[in-house]
Every structure is written in C-alpha cells, then in structure tokens.
C-alpha cells in the first residue's frame, strides 16, 4: 500500500496529525507514543552509558556552574538530534524505503554488536 506522503512539515512545529481519521494511519505507521517511547528508551540508554558524554558533562564539576553546562549541553543535544532527524527524513525521501530499511537494519545491528562488545569488554576485562 502506498506510504502516505506527508508534505514536508516545518521541523520546529511538533507533528499534530492526531485527527481521528488518522488513527488507521497511526496504527500502520506506529503510534506517536510507540515511536516516542522506542526512540526515548534507546537514545536514553545509549546516551547515559556513553562515557564520552559523561566526560563532556564533567565540565560542570570543574566550573561549578551545572546550570550553564546543562543548558549548553541540552541545546547542543537538541540541535544534534534535529540534524539527525532531518538527515533521516531526507534519506527516507532519497532512498527507496526497502533499501533504507535494510541499510538501517544492518547499521543498527552493527552498532548494537559494537556497543555490546565495548560494554562486555569493560565489564569483563580480559586479563
């Protein structure tokens, strides 16, 4: 079935297509909540376990201005996730969906294996 071609919405305004008749589209494309939750959990876990991120945020310990560091870091993270989302959207318009899904699947599995290996290595250091 044809993917509903959503016209390019301005990235800043959150998607507000919660109209009742969109419910079937919502089920097909995974509801807002489901996608939100999947993204939130995956990104949160990856980000919190990321030692480089902790290192970057330790600036606050030295500067003694956690609020400023938090604001700076959040702005940076939101802009980088906006860049990521827009890149993803652009890719989904340039590549055929099936090919993008296959590429994305391989990338995610590679990332998962690499992350898992890193975590396992530091949890069970090979003597």
């Amino acid at each position: 079935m044809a993917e509903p071609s959503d016209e390019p919405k301005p990235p800043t305004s959150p998607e507000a297509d919660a109209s009742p008749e969109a419910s079937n589209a919502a089920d097909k494309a995974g509801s807002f909540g489901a996608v939100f939750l999947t993204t939130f959990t995956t990104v949160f876990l990856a980000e919190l376990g990321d030692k480089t991120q902790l290192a970057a945020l330790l600036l606050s310990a030295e500067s003694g201005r956690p609020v400023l560091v938090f604001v700076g870091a959040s702005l940076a993270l939101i802009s980088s996730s906006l860049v990521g989302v827009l890149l993803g959207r652009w890719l989904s318009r340039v590549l055929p969906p099936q090919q993008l899904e296959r590429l994305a699947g391989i990338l995610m599995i590679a990332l998962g294996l690499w992350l898992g290996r890193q975590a396992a290595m530091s949890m069970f250091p090979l003597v």
Partner: protein
Amino acid sequence: MQLPLLASTFATVFLAELGDKTQLAIVTISGTSSRSGAVFAGSSAALVLASLLGAGAGGSLSAVIPADALQLAASVGFLVIGTRLLLKAGQESEPEG
C-alpha cells in the same frame, strides 16, 4: 552571563554528538519511521534528561550509574531495532520469504 562556558559546552557536546552512535540511531529511526516528530521529541527528551543527570550529578554520576550495564542494555535495544528493520525489509521483497 558566562557565555564562554555555555559556548564551550555547546561546542564540545555538539561535536561529540556528531557521528556518535546515538545520532546514527536517531538518523536510522527517523529514516525508517514516518513519525519524525515523535523521533525528534523522543530523542531530545532522552538527551536532555541524560545531560540533566550528567550536569546535575557532575563527577558523582559516573560512580552512581552502571554505565557498562546501560550500554549493554542499549546494545540490546539497537539489535532489536535492527533485526525488526531487516525483517520488515525482507518481508517487503519476498512476502513468503
């Protein structure tokens, strides 16, 4: 206002994020879901909360949270999403396959 600190944190974190696995995950999820608004909201909320914990707890955070265990959990999450995507791609080409 401490602009230098703000600017240096912004630059450090933004550059650290570019090409980081988290951003690759965001690109992947956003590219394969028509709900990029939800992806943006989910990833921003997660990143801000993670940096809130980081900035708030400062040095003590690394002692508090089991970074490795979280990374292991994240890797499982990535593998699940990746497998689901491959299955979905496989289904589309050979439905009976």
